[in-house]
């Protein structure tokens, strides 16, 4: 009799303990990633960030929605870095794969395409790796941006120039894609407002491999600082050619490329180059929810064996923000989660997250700040990325002006 009672108690306990997990359903999050094509290098770390978040959430039992737990399933396809594929695949994710929520592809251009589809079907899409602000000014209601908008990207670089050499002659050169053009437009307006002198302003094709002609024009303009760039491939080529052609510049700030750890493979050509960054592993944010920056960095390194950049952090943050909104809403219904996202104004490991809620700019990121990182020589002459601006986030003093070449 005693034995029977003990068994019954054990079984009851087991059922009670397992209850949340037994009820665990699956929440499907759909997106595309550029496994092939020119955006592959930038898109890959973002995917790793999504996957790390999924694994951590599922290990912890899933997303808690009221009394239920939802395991996270990521459903994704290769968009081949092509907008045509994105349009087709986001429709498929919604209609055939029944994705509950969406993450954006990498890049502003692909995200703008995906947003047309997500809005058409009224699906929430958390965008990361997509800084161009235009997409959020089209009256979308379910789009939420994590990145600092493009027009503020180079503000920190301009702050450095203003502080160090306000009479500097600035060359602004940028890829003619949507994101880089939006960054340049914002930088030009900011430079004018700050009384800085832009002596050369020109775009180049995003697939440019030889920057010789444009570098000659920079020299001819007499510019002594350079800001601009585009994505990884063109940015790393530009940095190498500026070095090979011995262009004397006091300060260089390029978009995206110098934030990828592999940029250090350029050797001397990487030294001193700065990058406006959405996030650096050394930031000291105290999060209101989720992991601390150091815990994220540690987990990422343990899983993938390398240090995360801001693309990876953005991927993880997209999951974290969505999770928090769902848990706060206590529902997976679009209206409830949208309301929770609209009301979010919180510090995360990735920085502050606060979305605009006005009709004209709904979903635009208005809380997040950029930092400026610079490649410097560390211990045993190895190149390391240091946060150099703003002073409050600084991990090393800025190298300014850069070393000049003897001609």
């Amino acid at each position, binding site marked *: 009799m005693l034995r029977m009672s003990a068994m019954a108690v054990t079984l009851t306990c087991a059922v009670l303990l397992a209850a949340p997990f037994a009820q665990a359903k699956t929440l499907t999050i759909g997106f595309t990633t550029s496994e092939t094509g020119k955006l592959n*290098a930038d898109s890959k770390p973002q995917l790793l960030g999504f996957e790390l978040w999924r694994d951590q959430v599922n290990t912890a039992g899933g997303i808690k929605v009221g009394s239920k737990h939802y395991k996270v399933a990521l459903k994704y396809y290769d968009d081949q870095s092509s907008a045509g594929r994105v349009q087709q695949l986001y429709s498929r994710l919604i209609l055939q794969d029944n994705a509950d929520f969406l993450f954006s592809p990498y890049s502003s251009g692909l995200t703008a395409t995906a947003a047309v589809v997500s809005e058409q079907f009224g699906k929430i899409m958390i965008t990361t790796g997509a800084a161009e602000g235009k997409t959020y000014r089209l009256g979308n209601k379910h789009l939420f941006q994590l990145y600092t908008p493009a027009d503020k990207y180079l503000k920190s670089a301009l702050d450095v120039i203003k502080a160090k050499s306000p009479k500097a002659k600035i060359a602004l050169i940028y890829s003619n894609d949507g994101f880089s053009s939006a960054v340049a437009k914002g930088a030009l307006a900011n430079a004018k407002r700050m009384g800085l002198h832009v002596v050369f302003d020109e775009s180049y*094709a995003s697939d440019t491999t030889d920057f010789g002609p444009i570098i000659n024009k920079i020299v001819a303009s007499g510019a002594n600082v350079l800001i601009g760039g585009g994505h990884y491939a063109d940015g790393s080529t530009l940095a*190498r050619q500026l070095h090979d052609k011995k262009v004397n510049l006091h300060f260089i700030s390029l978009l995206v490329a110098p934030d990828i750890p*592999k940029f250090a493979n350029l050797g001397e050509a990487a030294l001193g180059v700065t990058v406006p960054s959405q996030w650096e592993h050394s930031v000291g944010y105290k999060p209101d929810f989720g992991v601390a920056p150091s815990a994220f960095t540690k987990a990422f390194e343990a899983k993938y064996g390398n240090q995360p950049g801001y693309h990876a952090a953005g991927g993880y943050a997209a999951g974290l923000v969505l999770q928090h909104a769902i848990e706060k809403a206590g529902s997976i219904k679009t209206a409830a989660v949208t309301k929770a996202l609209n009301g979010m104004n919180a510090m995360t490991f990735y920085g502050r997250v606060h979305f605009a809620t006005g009709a004209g700019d709904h979903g635009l990121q208005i809380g997040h700040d950029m930092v400026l990182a610079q490649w410097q020589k560390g211990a045993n002459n190895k190149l390391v990325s240091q946060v150099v601006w703003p002073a409050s986030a600084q991990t090393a003093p800025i190298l300014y002006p850069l070393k000049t070449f003897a001609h």
Partner: protein
Amino acid sequence: MYDLVASLASGVLVGAIYGLAAIGLSLIFGVMKVINLTHGAMIALGMFALYFFVSVLGFNPYVSLLPIVAGGFVVGVMVYWIAVNRVIGSSDLMSLLATFAMNMIIIGVGTALWTTSPYNVDFSLPGISWHGYTIPGTQIVAAALAIVIAGLLYVFLYHTRTGKAVRAVASNRQAAELMGIPTRRILAIAFGLGIAVAGAAGALIATLFPFTILSGGSYELKSFVVTVLGGLGNPAGALAGGILLGLIEGGVAPFVDVSWTPVIEFSLFVLILIAFPAGLFRIGKNH
């Protein structure tokens, strides 16, 4: 004024490399009337081969050209027997699709192996500086080597028995066969040579710029322009066409936004096609 001179000098140097890249395409088309769409992928493989020899094995980049040319030849002959041999003589579309398929396979495998993240061969040589403008030493050596390789190919085609056989097949395959020339073997050799030259061009480009598996694409496009400028099937014309294209790029750049350069370049290309349908350098045709 200084910027125009610097820009033209850079244009000529980079143009010589365009020319070398185009020679491979031109040779293959001239001999077997195949538009080789693996051309860009082969240029990219040449870049990665250089990376392997320099960054992994520690070779000097210019010494690495020898195994790259030899390896390129072997790969070219293999591609010929696998994808081209059986479709030669059938419609042009068949060979176009066969080489396109090979191109997609190479790009796909290359992306899986190396991603599309750029690779860099960290190598430099002292250059020439003039009024603040610098031409890197690597660019000067690359252009010189491009001309030397083109010259060696010329010597091979005009002064060796096999080279003459290649030209004979290009001129009239049936007649060459009647003269006892093993035409299939010669076609394989020509294809191998075309790929070897493309690989060499890729290796030289890799000494100048970071690259990805997709980087060959833009040089392939330029190679088509250069080949048409120089006259289809005319390697000497291709080299001259490459230098002309570089000069156009260099001459235009100081006066317009650089993103307009391709528009001007291709507009000139269309005009040249209208005025000289057989290419600008017909006189240099080798058959």
